[in-house]
């Protein structure tokens, strides 16, 4: 006969928390998924409270992060399936969406998702013009035209036959 301890894995799995986004939407998440985020894990260890409000993450981004956490908390899925989920997860997403996502993973401290998103962003940034990068990151160019031209001039011998894109 199989006996289940009260604090056994079955009961632990059923525990869930409510996470609220900055725009007020609430998500019911299993605790096993929530603790994959180091920040949420810390809160849950300190407080008995089952409601966590995230003042910086909007509902769309939070929904994506939770979908990721729930998939990775699912013991029934093989590592291969999780890997292909990760690929699918970031593919086709706009650069802007990825920016919010990477910020959210930083806040929630979900290291593996942070790296997956950072990799995707790096892939998108390949072959892009400096102007494109400045626009997407909203960075002011603080080089004088002379200083920029000087750096470019010094480095004109290799890899320079590549066509850079601006979209």
């Amino acid at each position: 006969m199989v006996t289940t301890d009260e604090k056994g894995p079955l009961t632990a799995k059923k525990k869930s928390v409510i996470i609220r986004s900055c725009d007020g939407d609430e998500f019911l998440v299993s605790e096993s998924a929530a603790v994959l985020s180091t920040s949420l894990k810390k809160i849950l260890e300190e407080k008995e409270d089952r409601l966590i409000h995230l003042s910086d993450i909007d509902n769309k981004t939070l929904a994506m992060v939770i979908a990721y956490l729930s998939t990775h908390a699912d013991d029934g899925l093989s590592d291969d399936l999780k890997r292909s989920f990760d690929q699918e997860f970031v593919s086709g997403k706009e650069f802007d969406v990825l920016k919010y996502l990477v910020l959210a993973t930083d806040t929630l401290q979900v290291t593996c998702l942070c790296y997956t998103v950072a990799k995707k962003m790096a892939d998108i940034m390949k072959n892009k013009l400096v102007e494109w990068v400045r626009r997407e990151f909203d960075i002011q160019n603080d080089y004088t035209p002379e200083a920029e031209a000087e750096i470019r001039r010094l480095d004109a011998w290799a890899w320079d036959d590549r066509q850079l894109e601006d979209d």
Partner: protein
Amino acid sequence: MDAHLNTISTLRTIEQGNSEMAGDNYLYVKAQTSIDSLPDDIVFDILVRIPAQDIYNSTRLVCRKWYQMIHAHNFINAHLQHSTCGLVIQNWRDRTSHPTFVAMRQGRIEISKLAYNKLHYEPYHTVWSSCNGLLLGSYHISNPATKRSIALPTYFGRTIPGCSCAIAYAATSMEYKLVYTCYFRNGNSVSERSCAILTVGVDKSWRCVRTEHLSLAAKKQFHVKPSMVTDGFVHWALTNTYVLTLNVETEIITQTRVPSCHDEKLEHYYLSMGSYLSLLIACSEFSWEVWEMKPETGEWTKMPKINLEAQKCTFEQLCFKHDFSFLQVGSLNRKLVPVVFLKYGLFCWIFGFVLQKPNIEGAPEILV
């Protein structure tokens, strides 16, 4: 795959009171009202995953802050950890041909040409040794990604040829070292070959590596240039007697006996397999006995034999069509060995086979 969706449900009913109660559980972050700029550590995590050539073409020109981040020592080291290992392949029959970079990314073989000819001071584009993307040419060490090169240091005032050197990376001290097989006179007008080492960008002069402990038979290996580089080690490996292994971190050289085989006349091929040195002994035209040496201990382990006799027909068909030669060039992703076929000394095809599962994989790729 959809099962996980059941666990997430959006609850749209929120009462004001709840949010007051939840006050203690607010997760505060760096004041960030809009997404104007990402925090530096996130930017670091993104930039470190961009290929070096893209960083040099555009990323570092974005702003001064990024420029400084990219040129810092910790970034360069972190970037190296994220880089894909690859091989620099060159057709030595045609000395005007460009080195080609071959790498495996996400299961696909990627090939890119290095525009090495733009280094006007190199009469030929021969790459004698390479390490972490640094190329050792006839007279210079260059980095095609950063577009920088430095002249090879002289040996007691003399210019030394790149062909008798090898370059390797000492990971702990994070230094690149140049290893040179040199002559020196031992007093009674008999010149003897030995080995000298220099830390690139640090040392002004060469240091002699101690070789007194090596046997005379082992020292004969110095008659060839250092031929193989594995992670942190340089090897003199060409014959069926001894392999000399220099640890570039400790600068200690050791001798290792090559495993004996039943027929001493069989051809021995050595390959760098990342952290191991592999030995292929040709039993027939299409089969090899495989050994692996761990450079730290000098222990040889016998690996499963590679037998391509079954694919002989495929090769012979190619052979009929092309001027054919069979050459193992190194490892990709530490297990795939590309095999190169040369046609009229101008083109080559590349096949790969996995050492553990020796089958010919994929279609041939043309490397001009």
